[in-house]
């Protein structure tokens, strides 16, 4: 098991640090056993290495000499001068990544969109044209998309609450979103066209009622609080049959129930 790479001629001996017997040494001849001990691996919690700093400084003075030789190989201009002071805290000298970084964290695109409530659906953010898919996938914070489901309709939708200014507008949007889907569910032979408008979502008088789940997990009737307060606390919407209001709200203890007891 050679400790040396293939091309002995081009390999700088200075960096031949992994020899056969698994004891590492500097080929330069400066056999510094103190350093050896410091870099020796111990299975113990860190914190006992106060001498680390001084050892590193010692290492750095050697490093400059080595580095010059290495870089003569390729005529590279890479200058290590700004990295001579090793300190465990020098995060500023590292490649820090400010803000969202392309391809980080390393998860597949469809996983990125799982929890975020303002993602775009149906995979169009996965197709990147030249590695900038990450930028495309970042949702804009201005849009406020929440999910909305309707009883007896298996597929849900999403609404952008920032596009509306009032409950009436929201109610109208819900009608537009679900009218066709509801008609399709109810009439499988699909003859009737658009179907009946979905009205009375807010006053309990229609066939359906609009409810929502707030940021505390409670299920609420839509319409009680000022619009802005609603927008800031809503997590998702649900259109339920008006006849089932009491049983639907039972599954999450509503604030009304809590207050009544």
């Amino acid at each position, binding site marked *: *098991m050679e400790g*040396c*790479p*293939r*091309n002995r001629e*081009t*390999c700088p001996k200075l*960096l031949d*640090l*992994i020899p056969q017997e*698994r004891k*590492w040494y500097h080929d330069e001849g400066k056999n510094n056993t103190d350093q050896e001990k410091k*870099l020796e*691996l111990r*299975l*113990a919690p*860190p914190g006992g290495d106060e001498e680390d700093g001084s050892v590193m400084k010692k290492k750095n003075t050697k490093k400059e000499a080595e580095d010059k030789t290495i*870089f003569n*190989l*390729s005529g*590279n*201009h*890479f200058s*290590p001068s700004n*990295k001579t002071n090793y300190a*465990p*805290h020098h*995060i500023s000298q*590292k*490649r*820090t*990544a400010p803000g*969202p*970084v392309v*391809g*980080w*964290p*390393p*998860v*597949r695109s*469809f*996983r*990125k969109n*799982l*929890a*975020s409530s303002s993602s775009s659906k149906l*995979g169009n953010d996965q*197709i*990147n*044209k*030249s*590695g900038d*898919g*990450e930028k495309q*996938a*970042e949702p804009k914070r201005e849009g406020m998309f929440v999910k909305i*489901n309707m*009883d007896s309709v*298996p597929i849900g939708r999403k609404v952008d609450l920032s596009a509306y200014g009032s409950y009436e507008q929201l109610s109208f949007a819900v009608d537009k979103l679900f009218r066709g889907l509801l008609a399709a569910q109810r009439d499988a032979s699909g003859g009737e066209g658009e179907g009946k408008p979905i009205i009375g979502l807010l006053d309990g008088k229609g066939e359906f009622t609009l409810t929502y789940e707030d940021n505390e997990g409670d299920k609420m009737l839509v319409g009680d609080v000022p619009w802005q307060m609603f927008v800031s606390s809503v997590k998702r919407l649900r259109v339920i049959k008006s006849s089932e209001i009491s049983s639907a709200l039972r*599954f999450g203890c509503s604030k009304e129930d809590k207050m009544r007891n």
Partner: protein
Amino acid sequence: MNRAIKSRLSTSEMNYFPDEVIEHIFDFIASHRDRNSISLVNKSWHKIERYSRHQVFIGNCYAISPERLIRRFPCLRSLTLKGKPHFADFNLVPHEWGGFLHPWIDALAKGRVGLEELRLKRMVVSDESLELLSRSFVSFKSLVLVSCDGFTTDGLASVAANCRHLRELDLQENEIDDHRGQWLNCFPDTCTTLVSLNFACLKGETNLAALERLVARSPNLKSLKVNRAVPLEALTRLMSCAPQLVDLGVGCYENEPEPESFAKLMAAIKKCTLLRSLSGFSEVAPVCLTAFYPICENLTSLNLSYAAELQGNHLIEFVQFCKRVQRLWILDSIGDKGLEIVASSCKELQELRVFPSDPHDEEDNNTAVTEVGLVAISAGCPKLHSILYFCKQMTNEALITVARNCPNFIRFRLCILEPNKPDPITSQSLDEGFGAIVQACKGLRRLSVSGLLTDKVFLYIGMYAEQLEMLSIAFAGDTDKGMLYVLNGCKKLRKLEIRDSPFGNAALLADVGKYETMRSLWMSSCEVTLGGCKRLARNAPWLNVEIINENESGRMERNEEDEREKVDRLYLYRTVVGTRRDAPPCVTIL
């Protein structure tokens, strides 16, 4: 290959056996590496091995050409091909980079190869290729596509319609354009041979009637993974006519079901006594998960990593009863507490993956996991050998403890979500922690490092990670020495992928011959320059050195002055067929 057998059967003795006998002996040798070794013994064995090789694995589709492959292995039946580099999964490789399947199908068809099985990973597959595939190979049985793209449900329709003996159609995490057609209908009524059907990644509507008919006439069906458009009632019917299922992927059940539907579902589930693997749940009301309680003790594999809707407590409630689970994929919403419960309940656990539910910390939640969960798992699960762990933070002490608890790791992939993050308690780098892992885990084959790391960690890796085959580095290291420690030390290294680390030409050029022993090297946002890459390409004609730049037109304007320009993305790999001709403009092959 068993060295004892090799020494006992000297080749001169074996040559007295007819070829068929030798071939029969070779049949017992399945591993690709062993097969490759046998073929090097002598000409006779090379020839016999060639004709008896039925399974070929090609880790990089550009390392060899389809024509040469077929010339050497004319009796090929099963082919595995991998295309794009791993970082393509994270949008670091242009969509049109390459990895096209068509030339392979074309050559296999022309060569009249009796292909039965095709497994692809990160390849670009077209509907035309699928159509050609379906018409060219009479005995075709198994198609497995992982992370591929470029095709639509029309391609699937061809496969369904024309592959008379299809047993397996397994689509994992592909980007498929769903034309909402009737591809499921295209399975002829005479098709009753299906053993495995996975279309979970399809995004559109599914013809439920066709699916139910297909399942009903497939008595051998063991694995069924449906997509999100299969509602609860349909799932119930499917399970009722396939109680023999071993592996099930469910759809999406946001709405809480009616009690009657729920009861029917539970009844159907109870009958699936052979069920061992469960996945899907892309969106699920918590109560739907509870329907699976009756069989959860039988589960050996559980993937809840798409279930972003489930809170930690729902996950814990379920997972704690999965006492036999060996493979668990879960979201970090389970929390450290949840992992502690997993550690005390799931003693058979071998592989754990904890994915981030909120990768960009948008929701500002505090439930992400930390070193506490990892330590608990390492202490509680003695059979653990593979882990992928996304976490908020990690400490050296924890990693040292984990190393001591679990010296059997084969795969250890740790991703601290914030780049360069140090040990939060000591503010030091994580060199010591990872060092402990590589020192203790002598069988470690795959490693991904993260957090604040200096060159020292790579010294440790080079010194101790003797079996390491794949290493992933991001935002780590100080100087070229880091990379050199790895290249010099890890003798079995096959794949090295590096991003955003200060390694440059000196490291790249130090040992050009090393790359011949490796499958590939990826470096992006590092310090290598165009000049360095050109020099490498000149000194190593057996390598394809590819430069990927954002800016397509840059290729034409490049002149001598730009040799100092840093290369955005470098991907190099050994090949016996030279430069490929299908590279797009944004890729320059030196």
